[in-house]
């Protein structure tokens, strides 16, 4: 059973990925069913929180947690509460970050983790704020502020 997330227009992507020529070009196996954006798998959620997991991986890896701030599926406030609950050592106060002269959101730096919002974006930040998303991920990959 396909499951289409509410409010999202996926007709173009679904049509394209089910074109025989596209399946051939992408070397898709005969056994693979028709493409759907989401599939209702029998899935069991084990973790109610990622607290312990974050605590472990932040001992070794840098983290970036970002939120488009108009999303209500995973809203920015909940993730902010979560990161604050980790009690990481704070490096900077929460402050605006910019793309060019425009404020693109807010950022608060902790030791080993950046908490970022992307202003005016919803759940799919690279789709709704592509230029800001590219700047953000570039800074993160290059370990720049």
């Amino acid at each position, binding site marked *: 059973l396909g499951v289409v997330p509410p409010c999202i227009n996926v007709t173009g*992507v679904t049509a*394209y990925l089910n074109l025989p020529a596209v*399946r051939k070009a992408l*070397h898709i196996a005969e056994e*693979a069913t028709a493409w759907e954006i989401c599939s209702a798998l029998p899935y*069991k959620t084990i973790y109610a929180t990622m607290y312990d997991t974050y605590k472990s991986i932040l001992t070794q890896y840098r983290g970036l947690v970002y939120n488009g701030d108009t999303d209500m*599926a995973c809203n920015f406030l909940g993730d902010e509460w979560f990161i604050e609950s980790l009690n990481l050592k704070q490096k900077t106060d929460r402050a605006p970050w910019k793309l060019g002269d425009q404020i693109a959101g807010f950022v608060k730096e902790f030791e080993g983790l950046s908490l970022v919002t992307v202003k005016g974006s919803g759940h*799919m930040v690279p789709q*709704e704020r592509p230029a800001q998303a590219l700047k953000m991920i570039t800074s993160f990959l290059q370990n720049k502020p």
Partner: protein
Amino acid sequence: AYAPDEVTNLPGLKTQPTFRHYSGYLNASGEDRLHYWFVESENDPANDPVVLWMNGGPGCSSMDGMLSELGPFHVNNDGQSLYMNEFSWNKVANVIFLEAPAGVGYSYNPSKEYATDDDKVSMGNYLALQSFFKKFPEYASNEFYVTGESYGGIYVPTLSLRILQGNATINMKGFAVGNGITNFTTNSDSLVYFAYYHGLIGLNLWKGLNDKCCDGTYCVFTESTDTGCLTLVRETLNIVYNIGLNTYSLYLDCYNGPSSVKSPLLTRYQFDMQHALGHLPTQPPKYYQPMSAILSKSK
């Protein structure tokens, strides 16, 4: 690179891209075959980082990430042609789009065994990653990052932990989670504040929530045992999820929204323009038609 997986002629593109890209299958747990689409960096593939991207769900495909979010190829509304995304993340990185678990998108299991859970998924992704580096050994020493969105808030940290604790030599440096689930309870409790401070619920309901769910310093909403509180919380979440708002993006229209609230007259944009321009002499169609044309070009 694993040459048989190279995509040499992607349908729908006027000109093929200058960077190389590959699409095929990676081995994972048991018989699972996970589809991947790997695009090399437009910049300096040999030295740029390798980024794994995973959309969430659970059960949603990372092809949406490729074709409508951070990937280089975006699909036009005709469902046939593509245009290049000038803000693709492969401007600065080599990006793997992984469809996981089996049963999602093009990924499959020959025996159709699709029941799974958080831990099985992270193990499957860890094995798929090793299968990827077997196909592309030249990338094994590049810096590596795990990234994802939504339920990827579970996928990314659990895979990162396996990499940290496992013995596969992966040059992992970091992870990124976008609009990710981090804690289910705080995710829904914070939504109550979000709803009030964005004007989705009024003062009466807010006061009721404070009275019934809070003790003056601390509020328990979704896990409250007080039936009065839960009734108000349910009313609040009903407004957020069930009256036709775009849950994923408050200020965007809800494509195919619930018929009960489908506006027979106006899109959100037209509705807002009518409010913003309502004080002007009434020739509305002329006023906001040109605006919409300009808007599509403005940044």
